[in-house]
């Protein structure tokens, strides 16, 4: 599903590479944690998978497509097969929970009728039934992240990328979000999560890939934070 082959990424003006000759493969339906200290290069992996940045060397294959050589006009369509959740939620403040999710559908060409059918369903799934018409500022942090997860999942992506999704949440809320991601993973969606929340990693007991200074130092099935 995801294949990184000898990927090196050096940002312009950076003295050392963010990722240094990293190779890793992730199968369909896996749940993978990327862990490591700040600046270790784990967020760069998310950016590479989204084609927000291109690797300096090496090859990135997502969903059998070689992202490295992908033409720029194909990127939008490619991104529709990937859902994304961030630490800061990235919701539109002037739209309700329903509208935030529906917006993601409408801008990729889905009709309002489709949104009316699908959005309540996915909001129910993430546990926000009854709160569809609240604005982000009327929701708690955990609820806002649920909206973000709903938005990422509404299009039924093959892959869900989560960049420190619990970074702004208290431990209990974090666990709830993780349960949600786990449920999404059980539907067959590949989940890639970048985190440095040891508590969560230890509870989930999933594959853990540890990165330090741009290199993979550990890749362990059913691992702990260590």
């Amino acid at each position, binding site marked *: 599903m995801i294949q990184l082959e000898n990927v090196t990424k050096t940002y312009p003006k950076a003295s050392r590479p963010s990722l240094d000759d990293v190779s890793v493969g992730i199968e369909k339906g896996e749940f993978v944690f990327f862990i490591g200290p700040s600046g270790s290069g784990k967020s760069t992996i998310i950016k590479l998978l989204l084609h927000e940045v291109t690797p300096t060397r090496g090859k990135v294959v997502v969903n059998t497509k070689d992202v490295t050589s992908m033409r720029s006009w194909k990127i*939008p369509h490619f991104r529709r097969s990937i859902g994304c959740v961030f630490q800061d939620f990235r919701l539109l403040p002037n739209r309700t929970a329903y509208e935030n999710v529906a917006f993601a559908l409408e801008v990729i060409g889905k009709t309002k009728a489709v949104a009316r059918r699908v959005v309540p369903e996915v909001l129910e799934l993430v546990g926000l039934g009854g709160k569809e018409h609240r604005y982000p500022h009327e929701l708690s942090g955990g609820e806002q992240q649920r909206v973000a997860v709903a938005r990422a999942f509404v299009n039924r992506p093959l892959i869900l990328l989560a960049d420190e999704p619990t970074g702004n949440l208290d431990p209990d809320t974090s666990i709830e979000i993780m349960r949600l991601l786990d449920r999404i993973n059980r539907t067959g969606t590949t989940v890639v999560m970048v985190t440095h929340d040891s508590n969560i990693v230890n509870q989930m007991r999933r594959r853990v890939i540890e990165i330090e200074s741009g290199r993979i130092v550990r890749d362990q099935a059913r691992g702990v934070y260590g």
Partner: protein
Amino acid sequence: MRLKYVLNEVLVGLWRNVTMTIAMIITMSVSLTMLGASVLLYLQVDQMKDYYYGEIEVSIFLRTDVTEAQRSAIDQSIAANPLVKEKTYETREQALERFKTLWADNPDFVKSVGENSLPESFRVKLKDPEQYKTFAEQMKGMQGIQDIIDQRALLDKVFKIFNAIQVMALIVAGVMALAALLLVGNTIQVAAYSKRREVAVMKLVGASNWFIQAPFVLEAVVAGLIGAIIGFIALFGGKLVLLDNRLQALTNILTPIPNGNVWLMLPLLAGVGALVSAVTAWVTLRFYLKV
């Protein structure tokens, strides 16, 4: 649905930044008015050249003391010249008659001109009016000729003035267009900034590039079109007020500007306004949004 979404975005966008929108529309319309005026003048000068150059004559005025022999020698020389299309001879009396009808509304002026003060002349039409110099060169040496006058030289002076006006209008149009371009670029940047969250989400979930850009580009195009319409109204108004009323005397020389030509400016201005706005907006977005 999508169309409705896009149109709504456009109107909201234009309204959000209404002072900038107005500035953009005004500069755009002034620029386009000047462009329209310039093109109209160009068409006009072209048409006038066709009209006047067909009528142009070279006048060979004879000396008052010209002899019979000299006159017939000139006559034959003109007739034999291969450059000449047709010639007419005008006696002093005929010249006076023509003068009287020309200045019929000014009898005092006519009275002041004596019976013999107007010279007799040959009026020559050349096959090719451009050949005037050669023809004059060939005739100049002959005895009994007072002066050879080409109407073309006179007309050329008039046309030079028109040309200068046209170029000036074009320069103003260009300068205003530059200002309009910068305003369009700025407006689009402000619009893109105020919608940066939406744009970020759209990019994230994979909205196509055209879908992200369309509202911004259309915003500029709508402003460009409004500018073009205002510019056209100004042009038409200017034509009605200035040329058809105030400066009617000038119109008599100018040969009337057909309304059809002015109407022709509407699609031209609209096309230029819309295209220039669209391209500017698109280029701005490429740099600013990197989509």
